[in-house]
């Protein structure tokens, strides 16, 4: 347990070494060092995990204090790590998936001139993410929270020579910032109410919290989660974040950082439960986002943007699960998603790697299955896992989330979740068929990536395939049972159908989605390319995400820019600069008049003396 601080410390050391000394490039040493440190960090997390498991279930909670961080009067915050089932599951996911993505990047980023810096940023990101999940109080969590935001900015804008990348980085930072501000206000509220930021104290006090206060605090926390996890209405940054290198998309925008919001909600569930309303809002935002993003993903032609929208929709499912109080299922989906989404992103990276000019357009792929078999078959495992086909991990995870709605007796939400699952199967299958099946539409000679990248794909595919064993059942699975001390027992079904019926319905829905995609894109019974033209308007609506982004551009960014222009060119230029220049000009003019007094003739000055002296004398004479 005492080793816990080492888990984040190792990647921090890597980041320090790489960022401070790594100006010059020494082969792929930087990549190996970074990967090794994250892998060792994973090993340490594993040791801590085994340590934790050897304790009895009730005693699986240790606080490891490193040092006093802030101590001002009664405001005391320690750099203290919390080792409990939830944090260690998160730490294992982050370091495990993170290490694989690091290894993949060694080859993927090989020709990049800022190779060392890339790995420095990646390690820094892992460090902040680990601080986030291991923190034992809200302030330390917030440190990690902001840190991953910073790294996200640095990595999205890694190819900052491209204006789109620089813009996307700014967009991601500013959009998540909106949520972060709410989160910070929430933390201040928590301090006001509990006079402590430690999880134990806050969660203990949360039970006695009045409903209204709990709702306010939990909604503020949730707003932070909405920003970081790209839920409606703050989701617009994630599709643009695909401007970053593909491993970044895999690591940050699929597997780890965006899941921080889900983690936050699950971690703070006592506050959310004290409110009740907040949980419903979480569930509704989640499911609406899932369906919205599902529709949008169907319209994407860019393979990475498709994956971005699919991430948004899967995060929606996670929030939905959390809102249904199926915390274990939400975390289980998070872990499974980390595997299959990292796999899909790295698969997309391999496709780009193999095609000329890093092609991401699905319309210029097709039939890649024969050209790059390993990429295609690993991708297909990710696809089926995500669509929810048993026995792959996605099936168990998503099934539990969807089933939670039915078991909570909320049939309407259950239907909505099933529809979301149907969309998931549909868009994922569509992308798969367009990229890997059908007639070839690509140029050049695509090929599988180099061996190291292939190994990572295979490892992730294995993870995506078998991670399901971690939670075969919502009540008795390994992860649900392991998480029980933190999130409480997953309750037995209160209502709705039996688990078996729910599973069969889930699978049926997934198969229906796949079948529909097959009918449209592969069966040759429909000319889908003609359909694209015929329903161009609908297609564009989906592709542009129902114009939410355009709406923001018009309604928020436009007026903000106008306002800034007004401030810059009218207030600053005319009024502020005008005042400063005006004062200067006033003195110059006055001086221009006044200087004429200075004739340079001594006698004029002498006369002035005389007159002055006479004046003073007269004054004195009159006065006395």
């Amino acid at each position, binding site marked *: 347990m005492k080793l816990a601080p080492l888990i984040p410390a190792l990647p921090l050391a890597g980041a320090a070494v790489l960022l401070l000394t790594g100006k010059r490039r020494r082969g792929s040493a930087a990549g190996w060092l970074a990967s090794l440190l994250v892998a060792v960090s994973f090993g340490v997390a594993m040791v801590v995990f085994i340590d934790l498991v050897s304790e009895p279930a009730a005693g699986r909670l240790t606080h490891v204090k490193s040092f006093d961080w802030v101590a001002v009067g009664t405001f005391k915050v320690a750099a203290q790590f919390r080792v409990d089932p939830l944090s260690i599951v998160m730490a294992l996911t982050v370091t495990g998936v993170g290490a694989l993505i690091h290894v993949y990047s060694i080859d993927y980023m090989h020709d990049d001139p800022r190779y060392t810096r890339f790995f420095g940023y990646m390690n820094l990101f892992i460090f902040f993410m680990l601080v986030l999940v291991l923190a034992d109080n809200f302030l330390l969590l917030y440190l990690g929270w902001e840190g991953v935001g910073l790294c996200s900015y640095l990595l999205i804008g890694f190819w900052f020579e491209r204006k789109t990348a620089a813009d996307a980085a700014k967009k991601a930072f500013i959009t998540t910032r909106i949520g972060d501000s709410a989160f910070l206000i929430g933390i201040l509220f928590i301090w006001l109410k509990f006079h402590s930021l430690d999880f134990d104290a806050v969660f203990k006090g949360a039970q006695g919290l009045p409903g209204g206060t709990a709702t306010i605090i939990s909604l503020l926390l949730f707003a932070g989660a909405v920003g970081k996890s790209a839920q409606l209405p703050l989701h617009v940054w994630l599709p643009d974040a695909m401007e970053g290198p593909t491993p970044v998309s895999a690591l940050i925008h699929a597997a780890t950082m965006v899941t921080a919001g889900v983690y936050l909600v699950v971690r703070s569930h006592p506050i959310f439960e004290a409110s009740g309303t907040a949980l419903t809002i979480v569930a509704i935002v989640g499911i609406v986002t899932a369906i919205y993003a599902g529709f949008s993903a169907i319209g994407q032609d860019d393979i990475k943007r498709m994956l971005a929208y699919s991430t948004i929709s899967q995060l929606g499912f996670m929030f939905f699960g959390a809102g249904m109080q199926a915390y274990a299922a939400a975390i289980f989906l998070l872990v499974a998603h980390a595997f299959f989404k990292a796999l899909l992103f790295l698969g997309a990276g391999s496709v780009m790697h193999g095609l000329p000019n890093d092609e991401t357009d699905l319309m210029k792929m097709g039939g890649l299955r024969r050209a790059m078999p390993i990429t295609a078959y690993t991708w297909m495992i990710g696809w089926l896992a995500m669509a929810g086909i048993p026995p792959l991990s996605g099936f168990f995870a998503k099934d539990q989330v969807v089933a939670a709605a039915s078991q909570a007796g909320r049939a309407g939400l259950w239907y909505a979740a099933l529809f979301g699952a149907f969309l998931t199967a549909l868009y994922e299958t569509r992308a798969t068929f367009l990229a890997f099946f059908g007639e070839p539409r690509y140029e050049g000679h695509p090929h599988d990536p180099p061996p190291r990248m292939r190994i990572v794909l295979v490892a992730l595919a294995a993870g995506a395939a078998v991670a399901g064993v971690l939670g075969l059942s919502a009540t008795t699975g390994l992860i649900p049972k392991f998480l029980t001390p933190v999130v409480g027992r997953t309750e037995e079904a209160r209502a709705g159908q039996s688990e078996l019926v729910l599973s069969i319905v889930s699978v049926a829905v997934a198969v229906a989605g796949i079948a529909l995609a097959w009918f449209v894109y592969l069966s040759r019974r429909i000319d889908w390319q003609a359909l694209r033209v015929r329903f161009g308007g609908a297609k564009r609506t989906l592709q542009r995400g129902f114009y939410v982004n355009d709406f923001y551009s018009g309604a928020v960014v436009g007026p903000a820019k106008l306002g800034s222009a007004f401030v810059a060119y009218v207030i600053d230029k005319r009024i502020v600069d005008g005042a400063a220049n005006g004062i200067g000009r006033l003195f110059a003019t006055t001086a221009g008049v006044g200087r004429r007094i*200075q004739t340079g003739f001594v006698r004029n000055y*002498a006369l002035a003396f005389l007159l002055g002296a006479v004046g003073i004398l007269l004054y004195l004479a009159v006065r006395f």
Partner: protein
Amino acid sequence: MRTPISYFLLVSALLFTIGTVGVLVRRNALVIFMSVELQLNAVNLSLVAFARQQGNLTGQVLAFFSMVVAAAEVVVGLAIIVSLYRKARSADVDDARLLRG
């Protein structure tokens, strides 16, 4: 019979006025300088006159001070005039108007 103080003051005022007018209207630096001396001595005269009337020495001592200062001033003033003449080839103060605004 003692000469009334008003006589001295009249002479002093007369001298001071001559000096003042000289400073104001003459253009030759040397003449202006002499006029300034005239003003100083006019004041000295009144100082001494007042001292005599009051019956103490304060005024006379002050007059000595002013003479000493005037002597020192002459040294500096003449030096300035000489260097001015060397530069401008004239002692006309109107030629030295570099400070005109």
